[in-house]
C-alpha cells in the first residue's frame, strides 16, 4: 500500500496550466475541476472560456492564471468561438500554417452559460460536428453574479432568485438533464465527472480528446460560497453527490450509456442535503420527495446502462 502512495501521484503531471494565484474562493470545487481538466488536457490546447466565476477569478488585466492559449469574449457564445477556432485551425493547418501539432480545442462554461444562455450556440456547434470538447462546470447556479438560479439548480435549493420564504420552498423545477440533451445530438462522447474522483475525470478528458468530433463533459463543481457549505467539505460533498445518486458518474459513448461506478445501494439523500445551507430550510416531506426522484432517476440510468 505504501508503494501505491508513491506511485499514484506520478500518474498525474505536476505541471500546472491553471496556475496558482487565482482569486477563487477557499474550497472552490470549480477551480479544482478546471485545474484537473487542464492537467488532463496538457499544453497543446486552445481554450475558449465563457463569462463566469472561472473567467473572472483567472483573468483580471494585467494578470492571467492561464499558461495555455485562452480566450474569453462573452457569456453565451463560447461554443461558437470554439467553432471558429477549430475551423480556423483546420484551414491553417491544411495550408501549412498555424501550430505544427494536433491542437485540442476546448470550450468551457458554467451551468448558466451552458444550460441556459449559451445552449443554442452549444447545440449549433455539436450539431455541426466540430472536433472540440465542451466542458460544463456545473455549480448549480449563476455564482459569478451572486447565486441566482439556473436551469441546473436542483429542486428545493434556495438561491437569490429562487429564495425560500414563507411560501416558497426555493427552486421548484427539476434540474435540466444537460448530458441527455448533449447526447440527443448524437455526438460520439458524453460524460459526467467530478473532481472528487480525479482519475475518473482524467480518463474522461483524455477519452474526449482522442475521439474525433464533439465531446461533452459535465463536471459537478461544488461551490461552498453558493451552497453555504464548509469549504473543507468540498471534495467530500462531491463524493456524497455521487454516492447518494444525486450526480451519478457515467459515459455515453456513441449513444451507449455506461455507469462509471455503481453506487447502489445509494446513501440517503439527507447526508448530502443536511450539510448545505441551500437545503437547510427543507422539510422532511420535501427531502423525501427529492429522495424519491433521485432513486427513480438512478434506476432509469441503470436501466439505460444495462440495456
Amino acid at each position, binding site marked *: 500500500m505504501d508503494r501505491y502512495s508513491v506511485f499514484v501521484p506520478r500518474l498525474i503531471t505536476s505541471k500546472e496550466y491553471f496556475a496558482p494565484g487565482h482569486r477563487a474562493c477557499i474550497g472552490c470545487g470549480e477551480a479544482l475541476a478546471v485545474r484537473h481538466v487542464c492537467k488532463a488536457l496538457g499544453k497543446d490546447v486552445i481554450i475558449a472560456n465563457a463569462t463566469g466565476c472561472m473567467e473572472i477569478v483567472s483573468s483580471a488585466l494585467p494578470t492571467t492564471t492561464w499558461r495555455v492559449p485562452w480566450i474569453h*469574449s462573452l457569456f453565451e*457564445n463560447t461554443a461558437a468561438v470554439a467553432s471558429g477556432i477549430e*475551423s480556423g485551425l483546420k484551414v491553417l493547418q491544411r495550408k501549412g500554417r498555424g501550430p505544427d501539432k494536433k491542437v485540442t480545442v476546448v470550450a468551457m462554461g458554467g451551468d448558466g452559460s451552458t444550460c441556459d444562455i449559451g445552449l443554442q450556440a452549444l447545440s449549433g456547434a455539436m450539431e455541426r460536428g466540430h472536433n472540440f470538447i465542451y466542458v460544463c462546470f456545473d455549480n448549480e447556479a449563476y455564482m459569478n453574479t451572486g447565486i441566482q438560479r439556473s436551469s441546473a439548480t436542483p429542486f428545493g435549493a434556495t438561491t437569490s432568485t429562487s429564495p425560500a420564504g414563507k411560501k416558497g420552498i426555493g427552486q421548484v423545477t427539476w434540474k435540466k438533464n444537460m448530458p441527455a440533451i448533449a447526447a440527443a445530438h448524437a455526438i460520439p462522447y458524453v460524460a459526467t465527472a467530478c473532481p472528487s474522483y480525479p482519475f475518473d475525470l482524467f480518463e474522461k478528458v483524455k477519452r474526449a480528446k482522442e475521439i474525433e468530433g464533439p465531446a461533452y463533459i459535465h463536471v459537478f463543481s461544488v461551490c461552498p460560497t453558493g451552497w453555504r457549505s464548509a469549504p473543507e467539505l468540498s471534495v467530500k460533498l462531491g463524493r456524497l453527490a455521487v454516492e447518494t445518486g444525486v450526480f451519478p458518474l457515467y459515459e455515453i459513448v456513441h449513444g451507449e450509456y455506461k455507469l462509471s461506478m455503481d453506487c447502489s445501494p445509494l446513501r440517503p439523500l439527507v447526508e448530502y442535503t443536511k450539510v448545505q445551507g441551500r437545503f437547510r430550510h427543507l422539510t422532511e416531506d420535501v427531502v423525501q420527495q427529492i429522495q424519491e426522484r433521485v432513486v427513480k432517476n438512478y434506476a432509469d440510468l441503470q436501466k439505460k446502462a444495462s440495456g
Partner: protein
Amino acid sequence: MSKRVGMEASFAIAEAAKLAETEVVAAYPITPQTHIVERLSEIVADGELDAEFICVESEHSAMSACIGSSAVGARTFTATAGQGLELMHEVLYVAASSRLPIVMAVANRALSGPLNVWGDHSDVMATRDCGWIQYFTENAQEAFDLTLCAFKIAEAPEVLFPLMVHLDGFHVSHVVEPLYLLEKEEIAGFIPPLRYPFPLDPRKPVTMGAFAPPVLYTESKKALEVALRSTKETILRVWKEFGDAFGRYYNPVESYRAEDADTLLLAIGSFTETATVAIDTLRDRGEKVGLIRLRLWRPFPFDEVRAALRSAQQVIIFDRAISLGGPGGPLCSEIKSALYQEPKKPKIVSFIGGLGGRDITPQQFEQMFARCRELIDKKIDVEYETIGVRE
C-alpha cells in the same frame, strides 16, 4: 486583364472575398444579405476557394465564430444585415477591442418593428459606436473594390481592426450592374498574407479577453479610440494604392458639382446617385447646388467634412434612419457636432426619408432643396422634416 461583366453587387462582394483568399466564412442568412453568403458557399463547395464555411445557427454565433477563427490567425469574412447586425451587437464590440481584423459586408436594412426587410440605415446607426472601421459603397463596383481594400486595411499591422463594408440593401445588394472584376494575377501581392501578431497558439500561449477593472477600463477604451482614429492614415494609403494600381480612387468625403455651391446636400449610400440627377437638373436651372457624399463613417473624417462644408451657406442632410425621441437624423447630428466649433458654419436642414426601402426620387431631392430655402427664408426652425410621409 480586368474584365467588364454584368453582376449583382452581392456576387461581386463574394468574388472579392474569394480573390482575397478568405479562409473562414461564418454566416447566417438574412435578407438582403443572403446572396453574398449563398454565392460564397457555392464558391467553397466548388473548390474555388480553400476555406471553411461555418453554417452557424445565428448571427450571434456567426460573429463569435469569426472571433475564434480570426484569433487563431485565419483570414475571416462574414456578412449580415438589419436584425442580424443587431443580434451581433455585443459581439461586435469584443471583435473591435480584441483587435481582430474581421471583414464584414452589411447589406443595410431597416429594423423591426414593424418587420421590414428592405433597406435603410437604422442598422448602421445602431452599431455606430462599436469600434469598427466602417465605410459605405454605392454600387457594385465600389462594393467589389472596397471589399478587396477592406482586407488590406483591416489586416495592416498598424491597424488590426475589424471593418464593415456597407451597401444599401436591395438598392445596391440586389442590382445587377456593369463592373470591372479584377483577375487573380492582377490582384496578386495587393493583399499580403495575414500575419496576426499574437494568435492563439500553444507554442506561445496568450490570454485574450481578460477583464478590465475600473483602474484599467478607461485606459483600454481610450487606447482603442486613439488607435481607431489613427487607422485613417492607412485607409487613405490603401485607397490611394488601389487607385494607382487599378484606376479607381476613393476618398473619405466625395463631392459632385460642389465647387461654388451655396447649397449642399450631404448623404450616404446609394441614394447619392439619385441625388446627382436632381443636382444636374437644378444646376441646369442655374442654381448653385452640389452634393457631398460621406464614404468613411468610422473613423469619422472630421477634417474632410469640415473642409467640404466650409464655404456653403446651407447644407441639407439626408438621413435614412431616425433617432426616435432624439435629434431626428443620426447622420445630421454627427455633422452638426462636427461643425459646432467652427467659426463660420452653414445653416443645417435635416431631412429623413427612404426608410424601410421606400424610394426617394430625383424630384423629391429637388423638393428638399426648395423646402430648405423656404425654411431658411421664413426662419422656420424644425428639428427635422420627413420626406414623403403620409400624415
